[in-house]
């Protein structure tokens, strides 16, 4: 594990970049392309809709459960194949996914995020797609989310973990 990854993990992020390879900035364009496709799916399947999230929490529609459930099934199957066949990335690097460590943040933070999810009808991903889709006022929600992350970063050592 690189020093960089170690630093990030100690300060408690869940989503890290396992790659040890340093690449020029334009190699990142491929992630933007994946993001574009992802954003289109978000809007076209109405995952960015406040109403769809309300239907989910009111147990009134299968849609969101179907989306998340299928995504987990496909993700699980592909991870199993990648691990069993020891598939490498296109740069020839061994693919590895780190384990997540339990701490109480997953409970407290999880509940707080759940409150925010029901209010805004958005997790972080859909916030970006909503802004792109022309709901300019969501920029305010987004800036507030950045501020929330910043406040967590400032006081995280004082919070129960």
């Amino acid at each position: 594990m690189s020093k960089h990854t170690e630093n990030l993990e100690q300060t408690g992020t869940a989503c890290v970049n396992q790659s040890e390879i340093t690449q020029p900035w334009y190699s990142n364009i491929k992630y933007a392309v994946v993001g574009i496709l992802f954003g289109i799916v978000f809007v076209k399947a109405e995952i960015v809709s406040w109403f769809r999230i309300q239907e989910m929490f009111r147990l009134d529609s299968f849609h969101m459960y179907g989306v998340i459930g299928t995504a987990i099934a496909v993700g699980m199957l592909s991870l199993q194949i990648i691990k069993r066949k020891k598939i490498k990335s296109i740069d020839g690097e061994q693919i590895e996914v780190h384990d997540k460590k339990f701490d109480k943040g997953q409970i407290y933070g999880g509940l707080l995020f759940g409150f925010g999810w029901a209010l805004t009808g958005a997790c972080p991903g859909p916030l970006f797609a909503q802004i792109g889709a022309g709901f300019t006022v969501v920029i305010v929600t987004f800036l507030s989310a950045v501020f929330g992350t910043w406040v967590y970063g400032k006081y995280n050592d004082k919070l129960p973990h």
Partner: protein
Amino acid sequence: MIEFISQPWPWYVAGILIGLTVPTLLLLGNKSFGISSSLRHICAACIPAKIPFFQYDWKRESWNLFFVGGVLIGGFIAATFLTNPNDVVVAEKTHDQLFALGIKDFGGLMPEDLFSWESLATLRGLVFMVLGGFLVGFGTRYAGGCTSGHAIMGISNLQWPSVIATCCFMVGGFLMTWFGLPFLLNL
């Protein structure tokens, strides 16, 4: 074809495509799917303020910022060129319950009553956008991930902390919907 694409996509199409993001990011460069981290990288890049939590080489994580930049562009493309000509169909029970709570606009992806610049000047708008956004940013980082990092990537990788986090996301959402919203929508 265009007609087919402009209809709302069914859950299994969306689920498969979102699920495929997991192996795609790993194959392209050993990256774990997760979106809320982008908020942390933005803090680290723009307002680190000597806080240890933001002292890391965010440029090494800039792939994540390219990814969310793409999501924004994708949202624009879908809403501009692949628009659904019809109103969003909202389940009847949800429609009636929300209508009774004062929501009037069911035409688009988000109700104008809550999410508009005019609404931002009201206490109700502040709660839904500003407080809601704060909770999303604070909560996801405290939990170490969001729906993508925990629910999809974490559970796919059989991580039990992610199962706990996902259950808490759902419990929080149910509590807010059933006990918070009746009060907050009437502010």
